[in-house]
């Protein structure tokens, strides 16, 4: 079979490797839209912080890794898909046919539609090329404004602080990381950052950016005094890369719509990762989950189905973890509560500790934590196995920090039941 995978992020690479494992000798082409070897965007903040060199961002580290598996890596950007002719047209002019196709084109940053966003000193931080520009364009003491304090904004935040710039964070929402933290948790992260000298402005809208004669930037804010900057880093969200699919007949919503076998509405075309709008474990609906674990699972499950090993995907569980200047935050599933469910909260603002567990009946369906670094994963275990907590729910209601004890007790109970 002639497999073509468009996109060389984690979903694409893992799909290619899985295909190579399932079908030795298959013709596998991995189409990368960037010049570098396949790399992880998640590692870019550590490059900015100068913890690692560029090679440290690469997804695979062994020389000849792709060749050894019969995976051909080509560097092209896809301009159009013609499903009738089973052909991809490249921006550079060439084209290529496929037997089975995986769309793993990821996502790309979006910028708010305000004046000045096209100025040279307004940067995104998404690709290695972006990272190089930010490294070259900042020196200690520079005034940097970070627009957007979502997940990506926050991991960049840490890296910018490590670069010793004077940092101001401007976020439109009423709190930091609004899509992974409730108001309490988001505000605690904001206070933590302020305590470490980062100026955090939430519920603040930038209305325009202009360049002054001295080369510095001025950001106009709604209802507030303007802010001066030497550089602006824009992290105001990402959107699935589906533009090239226009007119192809592929069903799209926010991303490419896929069924539980990672297949699109068109024959022999699948999608995975940030570009795919797939099954959500918690809601049963279809959503884009632009997170690493989803990309990895999508890639594996898609490859299995492409190779004819019909494998249903049980849905991706939303999960995030973040280190904001030493404060670790985590959230899972329905962290903001479930309809008709109940919850338990443990809050210690002074020591920046927070744990909120959401239940539906006696099943854990969501969790949110600040300052938790030990055995965090059991939260996933309990949510994803939907294990009935029974009498152990009361233990968690009395003290949510008993999560590990409750997990072990439930595992033992389940083992006993299975053997009975």
């Amino acid at each position, binding site marked *: 079979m002639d497999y073509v995978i468009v996109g060389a992020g*984690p979903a694409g690479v*893992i799909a290619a490797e899985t295909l190579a494992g399932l079908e030795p000798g298959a013709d596998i082409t991995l189409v990368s839209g960037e010049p570098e070897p396949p790399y*992880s965007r*998640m*590692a870019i903040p*550590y490059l900015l912080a100068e*913890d*690692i060199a560029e090679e*440290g*961002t*690469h*997804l*695979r*580290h062994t020389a000849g890794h792709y060749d050894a598996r019969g995976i051909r890596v080509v560097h092209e950007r896809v301009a159009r898909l013609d499903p009738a002719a089973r052909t991809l047209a490249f921006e550079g002019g060439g084209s290529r046919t496929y037997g089975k196709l995986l769309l793993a084109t990821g996502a790309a940053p979006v910028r708010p539609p305000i004046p000045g966003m096209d100025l040279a000193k307004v940067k995104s931080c998404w690709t290695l090329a972006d990272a190089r520009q930010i490294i070259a364009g900042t020196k200690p003491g520079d005034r940097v404004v970070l627009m957007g304090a979502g997940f990506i904004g926050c991991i960049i935040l840490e890296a910018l602080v490590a670069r010793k710039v004077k940092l101001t964070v401007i976020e439109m929402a009423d709190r930091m990381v609004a899509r992974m933290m409730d108001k309490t948790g988001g505000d605690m992260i904001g206070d933590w950052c302020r305590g470490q000298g980062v100026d955090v402005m939430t519920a603040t809208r930038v209305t325009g950016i202009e360049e002054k004669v001295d080369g510095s930037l001025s950001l106009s804010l709604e209802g507030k005094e303007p802010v001066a900057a030497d550089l602006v880093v824009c992290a105001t969200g990402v959107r699935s890369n589906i533009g090239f699919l226009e007119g192809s007949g592929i069903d799209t919503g926010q991303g490419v719509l896929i069924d539980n076998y990672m297949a699109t509405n068109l024959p022999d075309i699948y999608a995975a990762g940030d570009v795919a709008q797939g099954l959500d474990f918690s809601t049963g609906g279809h959503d884009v989950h632009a997170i*690493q*674990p989803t990309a*990895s*699972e999508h890639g*594996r499950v898609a490859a299995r189905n492409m190779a004819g090993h019909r494998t249903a995907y049980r849905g991706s569980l939303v*999960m*995030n*973890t973040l*280190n904001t200047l*030493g404060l*670790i935050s*985590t959230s*899972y599933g329905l962290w903001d509560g479930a309809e008709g469910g109940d919850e338990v909260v443990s809050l210690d603002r002074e020591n920046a500790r927070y744990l909120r567990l959401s239940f539906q009946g006696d099943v854990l369906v969501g969790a949110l934590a600040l300052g938790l*670094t*030990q*055995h*965090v*994963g*059991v*939260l*996933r*275990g309990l949510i*994803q*196995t939907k294990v009935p907590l029974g009498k152990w729910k009361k233990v968690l209601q009395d003290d949510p920090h008993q999560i*590990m*004890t409750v*997990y*072990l*007790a439930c595992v*033992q109970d389940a*083992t*006993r039941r*299975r*053997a*009975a």
Partner: protein
Amino acid sequence: MQKSLLIDPDKCTSCLQCEMACSFEHEGVFNPARSRIKIFEFEHGKRAVPYTCTQCAEAWCLHACPVEALVRNKTTGAVEVRDEICVGCKVCTIACPFGTVNYNPDSGKVIKCDLCGGDPQCAAACPTEAITYVDSAWTGYERMQAWAVKTDTKAATA
């Protein structure tokens, strides 16, 4: 023959020798807080369960790692952290549904059981054979069955 840790909670006295040995082997200090194996106590200390990574076949941690910092040791079967590659993103800590990969804020990397390269110090230190290092063939279904039988007997005689 590949070997695995076999844990028999019935024999555990919660002496914490395993945690001490583990932290000394990996961190050079006798400090249970730095251990990769943990004893959990139930019923106010009446029952103790040593708990660590089972080196599961699924290896959620390994697959979730964005930079290939987690690799399986072909000799021991353990999934090991390559410290020089780990960037400390912690995705593995939330991806492991068993909660056995933890973030170490001091090093900025993650830590997990690596079977000490094939000579697990927790098993060597355990005075009651609650932790043993045995042929892997015995640690799958049979182990579960053996454990279940024990707990059932206990329930019947309770």
